[in-house]
């Protein structure tokens, strides 16, 4: 019974999870006009 409950919770959690993000965001420094 515990296993069934655990599986059900996992399925529920997966369904509620946020969208998977892809990669990383680059944050280069700005090059300014001198």
């Amino acid at each position, binding site marked *: 019974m515990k296993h069934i409950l655990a599986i059900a919770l996992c399925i529920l959690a997966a369904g509620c999870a946020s*969208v998977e*993000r*892809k*990669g*990383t*965001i*680059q*944050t*280069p*420094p*700005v*090059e*300014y*006009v*001198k």
Partner: protein
Amino acid sequence: MKILTAAELELTCAVAGYAPMDVNKFSVVDRRYALPTRNFLESAFSAALWSFQSFFDVLRWSEEANDCDDFARLAAAFGQILHYLTPGRPPATALAVGELWYVKDSGENHAINIALCGPTPDDVVCYEPQTRRIVTLSEQEKSRTHTLRF
């Protein structure tokens, strides 16, 4: 480092041909602006913007939900984030990357980005955030600018 005041930025855009008929549609809300180089926009910024759009899965156009004004808003905000994070950035400045709404020669409304990559009208550039490239507007398109926001 070259800094423009809000008045200088507004005047430079106007002389370059980007002048909304309704002055209330020209919003320059910060007092001082630092200028990004054209090379930065074309290289590091474009690559980083792609990574940002990709991370949030907003690379694809979607009617109303993720269309031109959303691309332009995100690109301008992302530029401001990079400016804020840049070590040694000029203090108390915003970045001279804004949003531009206009009517295309085809008659469609469109939104892109506008940036000042120098202090003269020739340094005003337009940037298409959907392709991450600098674009050129016709003189007629410039004259049909209806909203500018920095």
